[in-house]
């Protein structure tokens, strides 16, 4: 993991101090709500449906045991609503439920005292009062964490694929480059008030596991014929109302030019991106509208940065060496804990198959703990669980864990000999469901239970599907399926890239859901990044599990032996799936009953 320097440590402390100063001036009336808004967003503080939400950055997903313990402490001591507030919030949710007879699914009660892992490797808390916000930022700074630019129209938390530095197909470990980019982008004076948010993802492996096609800037590590390291740079990908896949703007950028080139892209965007319409303000709209001219503008700007400005942000070998030194293989020793697991049993074997991945070091494995389980929303971890995770990481993985894009937590340095003991410990925590990559390993945003942007709830849908598909024989038979759901068109749940996507929409104050088919995040399983296609008019919440069942039934009926859902869908086309989905609508009399 990256080791903070004295400068880095002081920087996050001062950022927390600055935020405290801003909050105090706001409380005294010296800063208006409008002025505070972007300032608090730039520190990760939203005001949601019932309470503030804090979004804490976990840069490229890497988190230490000490940091997990601090998140557990914050969940336990600070993620606590006032009883009256909670009662009001639950009553409001109950009214929403009661207003839609026959259309909804059972709604899990609102929960508190936990952190939520997001698709962009942030951790969110939903109930911390704004009066405690500055104290929480001080605590986070004490373990080298922060919420810098986790929201706002700026360069957001930077992500990498989860298996950087450990995957067998890793070309270049991009974590050092992501860290260098994180530092460069932090409190950038020119790029703090962009037209809209700006997200950068790195992928250092052959397989794109970072969804780089879907990012404002997607950076893919490559080696040229001479063996030199560089990057293919894509720009203009994004989800939202207008899903667009990024365009390659540079096939091979030498590694040391990364910051100069990103500066060129972001400057062109800052100058020419649309600011008249929020829905047209992302860089994807500019790239699409301008086409080749955008690329020409970026190249011209890059040339000026190099030739006129003297390329001041050229990454030096010394700096790369310094940062890379933080990402070497840690000191490893097996835990050698006893275990009574039947390693020949089917459950264990299934866990090995789905949740354990090969490693570039032959005696090691990468183990994913599944946060897709009955009774919890996808990606939720309560205080006790995070405390236990800290210990698991300490015992089995050199005190390091990684949040994944799919809202799970992965231990990157597990000895093969420790797998049975780790399995036993994970099972005791309810984190050993062997479902990674399968239907129930779904992605979901917090939706209408918490988010003020949401048009519909996603957690009740996630809960219904999780409960319905608890038969592991069935889930294994269905094979790998990406099920992604978002509570609104902002697409935090990445519905566009799901093989099956679910999108919450609002019609006359009621919750409805659009279903899409055939999306891809860009992995080998799913093929080149692609947005899914809508199957037809939207469905009620109660119909959604029936629609999923109908889609899966169609797959089972039409598949060739060994063929995956996405491949059957692509081979036979969407029509039979569409027909099945639309056939699963309730008749009017059923709804009335």
């Amino acid at each position, binding site marked *: 993991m990256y080791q903070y320097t004295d*400068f880095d440590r*002081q*920087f996050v402390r*001062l950022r927390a*101090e*600055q935020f405290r*100063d*801003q909050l105090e*001036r706001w409380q005294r009336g*010296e*800063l208006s709500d409008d*002025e505070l808004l*972007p*300032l608090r967003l730039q520190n990760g503080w939203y005001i949601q449906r019932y309470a503030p939400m804090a979004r804490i950055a976990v840069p490229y997903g890497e988190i230490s045991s000490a940091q997990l313990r601090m998140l557990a402490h914050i969940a336990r001591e600070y993620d606590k609503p006032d009883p009256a507030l909670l009662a009001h919030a639950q009553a409001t949710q109950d009214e929403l439920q009661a207003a839609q007879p026959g259309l909804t699914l059972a709604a899990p009660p609102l929960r508190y005292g936990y952190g939520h892992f997001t698709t962009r490797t942030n951790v969110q808390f939903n109930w911390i009062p704004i009066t405690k916000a500055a104290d929480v930022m001080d605590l986070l700074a004490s373990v080298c964490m922060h919420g810098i630019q986790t929201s706002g*129209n700026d360069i957001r938390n930077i992500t990498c694929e989860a298996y950087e530095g450990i995957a067998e197909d890793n070309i270049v470990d991009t974590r050092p480059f992501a860290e*260098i980019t994180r*530092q*460069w*982008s*932090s*409190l*950038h*004076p*020119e*790029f*703090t*008030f*962009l037209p809209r948010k700006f997200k950068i993802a790195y992928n250092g492996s052959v397989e794109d596991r970072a969804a780089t096609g879907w990012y404002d800037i997607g950076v893919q590590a490559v080696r040229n014929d001479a063996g030199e390291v560089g990057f293919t740079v894509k720009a203009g990908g994004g989800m939202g109302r207008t899903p667009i896949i990024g365009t390659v703007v540079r096939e091979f950028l030498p590694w040391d030019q990364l*910051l100069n080139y990103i500066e060129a892209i972001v*400057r062109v965007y*800052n*100058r020419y991106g649309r*600011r008249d319409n929020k829905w047209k303000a992302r860089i994807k709209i500019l790239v699409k509208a301008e086409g080749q001219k955008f690329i020409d503008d970026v190249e011209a700007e890059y040339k*000026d940065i190099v030739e*006129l*400005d*003297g390329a*001041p*942000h050229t*990454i*030096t070998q*010394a*700096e790369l060496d*310094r940062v890379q030194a933080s990402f070497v293989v840690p000191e490893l020793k097996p835990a050698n804990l006893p275990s009574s697991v039947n390693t020949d049993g089917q459950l264990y074997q299934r866990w090995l198959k789905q949740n354990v991945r090969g490693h570039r070091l032959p005696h090691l494995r990468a183990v994913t703990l599944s946060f897709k389980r009955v009774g919890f929303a996808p990606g939720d971890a309560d205080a006790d669980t995070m405390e236990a995770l800290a210990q698991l990481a300490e015992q089995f993985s050199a005190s390091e864990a990684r949040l994944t894009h799919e809202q799970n937590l992965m231990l990157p340095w597990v000895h093969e000999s420790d797998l049975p003991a780790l399995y036993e410990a994970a099972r005791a925590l309810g984190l050993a469901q062997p479902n990674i990559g399968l239907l129930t390993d779904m992605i979901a945003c917090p939706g209408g239970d918490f988010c003020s942007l949401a048009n519909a709830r996603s957690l009740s849908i996630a809960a219904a599907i999780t409960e319905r598909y608890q038969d592991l024989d069935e889930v294994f038979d269905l094979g790998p399926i990406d099920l992604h759901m978002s509570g609104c068109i902002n697409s935090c749940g990445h519905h566009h890239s799901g093989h099956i996507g679910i999108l919450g929409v609002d019609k006359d104050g009621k919750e409805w859901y659009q279903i899409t088919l055939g999306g891809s995040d860009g992995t080998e399983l799913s093929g080149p990044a692609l947005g899914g296609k809508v199957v037809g008019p939207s469905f009620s919440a109660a119909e959604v599990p029936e629609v999923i069942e109908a889609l899966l039934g169609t797959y089972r009926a039409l598949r060739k032996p060994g063929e995956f859902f996405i491949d059957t869908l692509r081979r036979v086309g969407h029509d039979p799936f569409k027909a099945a989905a639309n056939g699963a609508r309730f008749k009017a009399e059923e709804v009335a009953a």
Partner: protein
Amino acid sequence: MKQTLRILSAEQHAGESGADEGLKVLQLPNDADPLAADLDLEGVDRIELQFPKFTDGRAYSQAIMLRRRRRFAGDIRATGDVFVDLLVHMQRSGFSSAVLREGVDASAAQRQFERYAGFYQGDVEQKEPLFAREH
């Protein structure tokens, strides 16, 4: 960092229209291209850049381009929706003066400049990024 940015009230700014002092002042809208061939900066003493809303950050890029690419050495002034939390960004982007929006309390300005010992990325004042200066 040392505060070099001159902070003006709206009144002070109104009293410095330039006409009395014989200054040549250029007002540039925030969608203007600072590198345009027909933008003549000869003899210009001050360029006023605009923040119609503080969330519209185009003028930061303009200021940087005026300093770095046009080597403009005169006064660059931030006008419009300006308050104290933006001033450090402005100085780092090449502004040399800023007019606080009417009603903004300037007392909190000084400590914004004193807070950070340094920044990661280079800027107009400090061209090199941290990694090229240290380590």
